[in-house]
């Protein structure tokens, strides 16, 4: 039985799970939605626990559970029923699981999903159902040109971390000509669009953009195309950064490499070796943030799961804090979805594992972003390599330093936007 039944008493779901036949549930005899503070608060999570995306998805669940355990399954004064659903990492599965959470389990809030295409698949549905959703998926446009009023993003848009990275690469690393390389899908396009725009704003120039398919066993054919530059920006996700950095080092290339939130994720540290030393990345979370909240989070992750957390776990933990804060603000009442959504948007936290955060009027986070360098010095928690923060950007908005209207006037970042220019 995978479901976590965490309220103090035995929940309906636990009973159901015990009766071998789910058909019992089909009869639809459920307690009617009841008085706010006696019923447990129902927290749903859309994640991926099977298949190639499972690494991030399992971390997401661990992040949520770490928070719930820390709070003894009580947030905003209410017991929590936590229901975790495995989407299998595909859009149709995500839609079905969202229906399960909303229609069958009557959750008050959805956390997740992980991937942009999963979020797009359910965006209209959550709007229709008015279910507040705290997404990890970074799809830019859902908090930009086509905002969804029931979506809140406490993590980052795809381009949000890459924009400070572009600034840092141009102004501090003094890079002039960069080749970008990342997976051939929307998350990659939006990351590199953000990097290119911010990098160009401070005088840099992207000379070539490479897009390997999502499942590329060997990156060498792409590494071989990197030339005529003074730096490389990679935007890989999942296990791909590891393999890219190996292929890169294996080809003997020495240009400095910069990356975004997933390309240097702390969860990869235990698998990174020599080849990653010197990689500079920008991330909305950093393991070396010396605050009480972050220590509490990391200690919890190590205690509960013996796992060195990366941003997926951290950002889901932060999402739980946001829900907790909103629930406190409404006095434990989440029955009015519009009111609860407003309370979520108004959350303004100062002490989270990722530092202070608040939300803009399009429901996206304004928070701190960290530039880190992979190095061996200072490694903790038994790791051999470490992400050392070398610069902090505070109050970073999804629009970077552009005025909102100017930012939104250009098309969403894509494979071809911004275009390559001669330089």
């Amino acid at each position, binding site marked *: 039985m995978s479901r976590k039944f965490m309220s103090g008493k035995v929940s309906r779901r636990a009973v159901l799970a015990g009766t071998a036949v789910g058909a019992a549930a089909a009869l639809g005899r459920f307690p009617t939605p009841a008085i706010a503070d006696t019923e447990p608060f129902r927290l749903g999570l859309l994640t991926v626990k*099977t*298949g*190639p995306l*499972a*690494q*991030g*998805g*399992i971390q997401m669940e661990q992040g949520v559970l770490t928070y719930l355990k820390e709070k003894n399954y009580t947030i905003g004064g209410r017991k929590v029923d936590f229901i975790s659903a495995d989407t299998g990492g595909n859009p149709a599965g995500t839609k079905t699981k969202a229906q399960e959470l909303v229609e069958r389990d009557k959750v008050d809030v959805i956390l997740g999903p992980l991937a942009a295409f999963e979020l797009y698949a359910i965006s209209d549905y959550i709007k229709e159902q008015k279910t507040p959703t705290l997404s990890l998926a970074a799809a830019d446009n859902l908090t930009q040109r086509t905002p969804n009023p029931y979506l809140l993003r406490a993590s980052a848009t795809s381009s949000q971390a890459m924009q400070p990275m572009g600034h840092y690469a141009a102004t501090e690393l003094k890079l002039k000509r960069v080749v970008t390389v990342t997976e*051939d899908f929307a998350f990659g396009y939006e990351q590199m669009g953000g990097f290119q725009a911010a990098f160009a704003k401070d005088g840099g120039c992207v000379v070539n953009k*490479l*897009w*390997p*398919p999502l*499942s*590329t*066993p*060997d990156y*060498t*054919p*792409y590494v*071989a*195309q990197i*030339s005529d530059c003074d730096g490389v920006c990679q935007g890989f996700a*999942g*296990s791909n950064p*590891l*393999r890219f950095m*190996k*292929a890169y080092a*294996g*080809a*003997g290339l020495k240009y400095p490499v910069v990356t975004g939130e997933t390309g240097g994720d702390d*969860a*990869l540290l*235990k*698998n*990174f*070796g020599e080849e990653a030393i010197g990689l500079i990345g920008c991330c909305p979370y950093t393991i070396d943030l010396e605050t009480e909240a972050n220590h509490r989070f990391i200690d919890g992750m190590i205690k509960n799961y013996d796992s060195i957390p990366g941003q997926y776990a951290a950002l889901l933990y932060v999402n739980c804090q946001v829900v907790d804060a909103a629930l406190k603000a409404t006095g434990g009442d989440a029955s009015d979805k519009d009111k609860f959504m407003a309370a979520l948007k108004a959350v303004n936290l100062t002490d989270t594992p990722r530092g202070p955060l608040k939300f803009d009027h399009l429901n996206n986070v304004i928070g701190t972003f960290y530039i880190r360098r992979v190095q061996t010095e200072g490694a903790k928690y038994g790791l051999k390599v470490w992400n050392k923060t070398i610069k902090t950007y505070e109050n970073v908005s999804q629009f970077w330093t552009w005025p909102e209207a100017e930012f939104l006037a250009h098309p969403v970042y894509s494979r071809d936007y911004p275009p390559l220019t001669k330089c």
Partner: protein
Amino acid sequence: MTFWLLLTVNSVTFGGLLFLLSAGFSLIFGLMRIPNLTHGSMFMVGAYLGTTFLSGALGFKLNFWLAAILAAVEVAILGGLMERLLLRRLAGQPLAQVLVTLGVSFMVADLCLMGWGGDPISVGTPPGLAGFVRWGGAAFPLYRMAVIAIAVVFAAALWIMLDRTRLGAMIRAGVDDPQMARVVGIRVSQLFTIVFALGAGLAGFAGMIGGPILSVYPGLDQDMLPLALVVVILGGTGSLLGSFVGSIIIGFIYNFGQALLPELAYFILFLPMVLVLLLRPQGLFGGQII
């Protein structure tokens, strides 16, 4: 110049790796007519087992080569068991074979996720092969050269085995005409188990050898299986020479295609396959086992 050299060397390396993976697939298909869809899983399991022996998580620590061999042996045993327990009874039922091999591959993928977690595991290059060979201003990783050498050695060994040994003669007879082989007294049943185990072991070995280049991660099986299919279809099923030539061709198409025609990255593997299937359905070397 460096660009071309690097790609050429890498094409041959990748081809060598594909050969180790697909030789077994081709033999199994040629001899037993089983489309073994667990072949990618064998590759992945070999890599996972190898990294475990390498890491010392089991209380002992092996060097890279011993770990690769031990992993290959274990995967071969798993393959043999699978043949004995499941595939044996399904001779001549391709649909049931597809169902059972896909079913096992689902189970293996999930077991690996359970056992090794979702995190990618990076496999260290064996000591002594971590450096570069410098040639004409370009640097070639020593390990990739070693992979080429390993593939050539295995190709030669397999060729000798098929051409010179009694086992090889039996396999050739079985591929050519299974009924006749049975009539002349070859114990086809035992032969099938041996060949299946051998093919699985080769795939497992390839997984570990590929480790330092590809790493090990959930989904590696899905990434490799189509490549093995393409190689075998291109080269011709049941043909060792076909697997070898097919692997090298695919190695080149894969590397040069992705570098020169990145827009076609998704088709580059399948177009030649469709062409070959339409013009020469038996594959380039179909019907010639060696």
